[in-house]
């Protein structure tokens, strides 16, 4: 049965989560980000959108694969460095980021599993916060099969009813998290349920933006590969990595060796985020680059999210969070680009 949690008891729930690394949105220098919560009392879930999505906890920007060092028998010793430590619980995950995690699950899953991703993913508990009003000026989750109160990818969904939260534990992990401080919660009354559902229904009408009938965009994109459309659209792109690093569904990464000492050789193989917007992402060591200019890279970003991923997984690889629109220094707007693709007459 769903539960009710008074806001004044919220910190008591957090205090009962000693077994977890508790992350919550925190304002640092005018920028909200999910940070390790130092003081449970200071956490409030009244915040707009974070700059870096919750993906940074499940798929961190830097991660060790293994340590290598030269053994005396002129060979190498490898020491696997799988992520350990307490499971993470992330408070205040927006539904668009919850759904984004289900999309990265598809990539890192499949017949060859990525152990590093799944070690964190399986233990992480995502506590969602339904968007009563859009957290960003560029939200369009409804247009890409999402919604401001979708439960996809979340373990618990909170809905703000004013002085208390309506708590829906959705998965076993969610139920266990709630049971950590069971006494703090009360059974929800039918009135609470109706209030929560009303907020959910209202929130769908308040969305800041939308991207209408894009059903045939994937097919359109297939035919526009060689179109000069991409040169015009990417004229103002400055080729930085903001739109992809801060996108909740972007999962591209790089693998490099970091050397600590040359002799005897010792170091680590490290995974870091990478982006298709940088030239060396696809450049062969011969200098040949299948994607030589920013037009090709903008095309890749749009095609991957609205064609290739749709062909592979029958879902857009965009959950409508609007970060790439809000944070692009030169105002490239993915909604406008996709609308122009939709209306493009070759």
């Amino acid at each position, binding site marked *: 049965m769903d539960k009710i949690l008074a806001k004044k008891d919220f910190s008591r729930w957090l205090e009962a989560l000693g077994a977890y690394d508790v992350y919550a949105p925190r304002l640092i220098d005018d920028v909200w980000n999910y940070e390790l919560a130092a003081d449970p009392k200071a956490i409030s879930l009244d915040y707009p959108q974070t700059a870096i999505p919750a993906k940074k906890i499940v798929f961190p920007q830097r991660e060790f694969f293994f340590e290598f060092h030269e053994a005396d028998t002129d060979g190498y010793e490898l020491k696997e460095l799988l992520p350990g430590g307490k499971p993470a619980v992330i408070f205040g995950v927006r539904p668009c980021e919850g759904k984004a995690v289900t999309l990265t699950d598809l990539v890192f899953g499949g017949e060859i599993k990525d152990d590093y991703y799944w070690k964190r993913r399986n233990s992480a508990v995502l506590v969602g916060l339904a968007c009563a009003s859009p957290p960003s000026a560029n939200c369009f989750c409804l247009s890409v099969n999402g919604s401001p109160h979708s439960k996809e990818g979340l373990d618990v969904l909170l809905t703000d009813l004013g002085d208390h939260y309506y708590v829906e534990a959705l998965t076993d992990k969610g139920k266990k998290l709630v049971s950590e401080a069971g006494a703090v919660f009360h059974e929800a009354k039918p009135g609470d349920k109706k209030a929560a559902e009303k907020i959910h229904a209202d929130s769908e009408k308040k969305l800041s933006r939308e991207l209408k009938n894009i059903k045939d965009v994937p097919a359109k994109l297939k035919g526009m590969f060689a179109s000069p459309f991409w040169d015009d659209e990417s004229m103002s792109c400055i080729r930085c990595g903001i739109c992809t690093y801060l996108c909740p569904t972007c999962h591209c990464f790089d693998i490099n060796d970091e050397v600590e000492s040359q002799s005897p050789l010792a170091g680590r193989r490290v995974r870091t*985020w990478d982006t298709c917007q940088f030239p060396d992402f696809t450049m062969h060591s011969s200098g040949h680059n299948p994607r030589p200019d920013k037009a090709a890279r903008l095309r890749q970003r749009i095609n991957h999210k609205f064609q290739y991923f749709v062909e592979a997984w029958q879902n857009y690889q965009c959950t409508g969070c609007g970060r790439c629109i809000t944070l692009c220094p030169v105002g490239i707007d993915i909604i*406008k680009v996709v609308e122009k693709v939709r209306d493009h007459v070759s």
Partner: protein
Amino acid sequence: MVKHEDLKAEAKKLLESGTIKYLIAYERNARDGKAIPVFIKKPEEVDKITWDPTCFHNLVRFVVDEKRRKARQKNPDTRPVGVVVKGCDSRALVILLQEKFIDRKDVRIIGVSCETTGVIDERKLAKKLKGQKAKNIEFGPDENFVVTTEEGTVNLPASEIMADRCLECIAPIPVISDVLFGEKTKRSTPHPFGSVDKIETLSFEDRWKFWSEQLEKCVRCYGCRSVCPMCYCDECVADTITFAVTPDTTADEKALKIKWLDKSPVISENIFYHMVRAIHLAGRCIDCGECERACPVNIPLRMLNKKLEKEAKLLFGYDVGFDPDKPALISCFRDEDPGDFIR
């Protein structure tokens, strides 16, 4: 007051006469009423052009792009590109001319004076409007900005929502241009290095605490480098993501290329990258403030470059970006340069 009609008329004249290939200007973004770069090729499109306090982009960045694009084309159209520049942006052109990166004939400069105000800082405006969304911002009379939100129009004193770069601006009037719009008003800037002076009052430990906390947030998205007109190297020495390789680059050249820093966004590598960028901007950064605006995690990057601009002025009497014929800061010296720090 700079009238939009004058700007549009000039643009139309240049496009119709075919003197310029296309014009790099500002266009109002219908989504949030703020300006974004626009590339106008046809005379009938000039109505898009705007000039308002949200024209914070440094469009000279796209003059650099044009040079790269021309270099790649087989038979490029060698006509100049038109570009709208503010006072600071024009000094970026001076640096590119000083370093012979572009020729004067490559650009047709439409100068716009900021007169007594400047451009807004989006974060300051958002705080001031407390959640309301600004739909339109215009220059208003006697140093006010006219801000229209859902609830109506309000006059805000420019100094409260202006960007720091404008509060500390030393050249509101373009220093180089083919045509200039707006009054050539003089402006006194009481403390041009105000933001940097704050840091200098801190002890070394406090400075390190401040900068290490700030630069630890860096996600190495290279927004600061990508938006900067001065960062035009084909291959950045600090962290090459371009790696200018040609078919006849030998394997040894590639294998022995020094990897100065790791790709990991950790404090030691972030600070290395930002130090290299700051030192390479010494005597070249004209404080257009775009690096700080583009940074998604809000690191006060301006203050790194501003410090070196201040030192160049105080120690070496060097003014940045006013004279295309002057040598670069670190390729000249004076006998009376300070040497007391040398044993």
